């Protein structure tokens, strides 16, 4: 079943077509990697999918509902959550309270939210720092914490923007393990990443954007070997 799809999605900034006629589909239960060179429109696409930007044209469908232009909080409540490249945790409350706040906001009762927070902190190796203010955690720990906030009431689809950027390899492995485990439980992911080894390891399928357009989609290894994708990353021979 297709969980998320876009039809003719477009966004222009002045004369620049950041995203142009994007038709993308994310199937339920998969991990789809979204790759492309810098400036290819991945983050703009993600912003439109998560309600942070209103598209100029086209539509976004989530679980067969047209959610074009809906606000992030409305999408979050439908189970479509997005993580940013830079973390958005609440820095002046503890890691535990961060999880508790997210859990309560998404409708868990307090006992359930506390229990899930403890389990997630354990899984994310954050138990030793659970009572520290989030502002005192390292960048990698904050990323892990944000994963926890995202999954305290598990979303149907998590949009992850460069989750592995500038993260220590050990924490990167913790994150990858977390994503794999959640995926095995049936959760769906759209992962934007420049980290090709992780994309290959993690993603069932990959989609590649260049200059605002989708240029390839399919099995991850096939997409990475697609000459059009290689050209998008490296440039054509005439430019070499």
């Amino acid at each position, binding site marked *: 079943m297709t969980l998320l799809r876009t039809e003719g999605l477009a966004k222009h900034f002045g004369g620049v077509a950041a995203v142009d006629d994007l038709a993308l589909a994310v199937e339920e239960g998969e991990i789809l990697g979204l790759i492309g060179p810098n400036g290819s429109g991945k983050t703009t696409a993600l912003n439109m999918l998560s*309600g*942070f*930007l*209103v598209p100029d044209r086209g539509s976004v469908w989530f679980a067969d509902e047209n959610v074009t232009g809906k*606000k*992030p*909080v409305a999408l*979050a*409540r439908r189970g479509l*959550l*997005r*993580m*940013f490249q830079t*973390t*958005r*945790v*609440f*820095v*002046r*409350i503890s890691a535990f*309270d961060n999880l*508790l*706040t*997210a859990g*309560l*906001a*998404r*409708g868990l009762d307090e006992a359930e939210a506390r229990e899930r927070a403890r389990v997630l902190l354990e899984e994310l190796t954050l138990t030793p720092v659970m009572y520290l203010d989030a502002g005192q955690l390292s960048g990698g720990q904050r990323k892990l914490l944000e994963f926890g*906030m*995202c999954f305290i*009431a598990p979303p149907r689809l998590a949009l992850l923007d460069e989750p592995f950027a500038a993260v220590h390899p050990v924490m990167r492995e913790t994150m990858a393990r977390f994503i794999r485990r959640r995926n095995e439980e049936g959760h769906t992911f759209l992962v934007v990443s420049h980290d090709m080894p992780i994309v290959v390891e993690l993603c069932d399928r990959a989609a590649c954007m260049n200059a605002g357009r989708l240029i390839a989609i399919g099995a991850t290894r096939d997409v990475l070997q697609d000459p059009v994708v290689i050209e998008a990353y490296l440039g054509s021979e005439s430019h070499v």
Partner: protein
Amino acid sequence: MLVVDLFVNGLIVGLFYALMAVGLAMIFGVLKIVNFAHGEFYMIGAYTYVLVALKLGVSPWAALPLAAIAGALVGWLVERSLMRPLYAGYGSWSIMKDEYAVVVTFGLSLFLINLVDKVVGPYPYRGPALVETSRFAIGPVMLNGQKLIAAGVSAALLIGLALFIKRSLWGRQIQAVAQNRLGASLAGIDATRTTSLIFAISGLLAALSGALLAPVINPSPDVGGFPAVKSYVIVVLGGMGSVWGAMIASLLLGVLESFFAVYVSYDYRDAFGLLILMLVLIFRPQGLLGEKVREL
């Protein structure tokens, strides 16, 4: 035992200051704007209390919550109608339009003052006291019933607010929005509704402050100006946007002013707050609690 008397009466004045300043600090903490119409929330509370009690013959005890409700309603309406452009459209979430807030809230302040001036009249009203008692002494401290009740209500409200922010779901959401508006919306928190709530609370506290003091201040249309200035001083003193800082700064200012009025100059007691503000800004520009512990 003049010292004890001055201390206790200073604390009582500080409680009134806190009731007024905390709402302003909350709005700044969440939206990073200064509400220049905050004094008019106070004025609305004072007028609602006086007019409902005098014109409709309602008991002052019933007029008090009505004034609080009026303040909350006005705060909520102001947010719904005038503040939304500040953060409408998530594309501009990081570009809060500070100048918009200054112009709109300042304009609102002038509008409300003139509205009351034209509709109700420019002359001061004297509100009925909650209790009619003469001054009495508790040990070395001289008090009057109205002041004691007003202080009690203020203290109860401030403690209730502190518990609400620390313990309740809505309080957690307020803290989250104040710390990271974008992150809050990602966590599933409706930042817009939370902001409405903050304006309603801010309006309620300021209006209640005006109502509690109405028998003393004899409200006129521009009655909110002076307490608003005091509140701005307190908010900066406590650390911009810090509710706890505002509470501490209010009590501190109340007590210090009380001593200053007796031992230095009664006439210049209100200027004393500005002197403290200058000293704090020189030696601790981030305010008493400072940036590192600023929180709601």
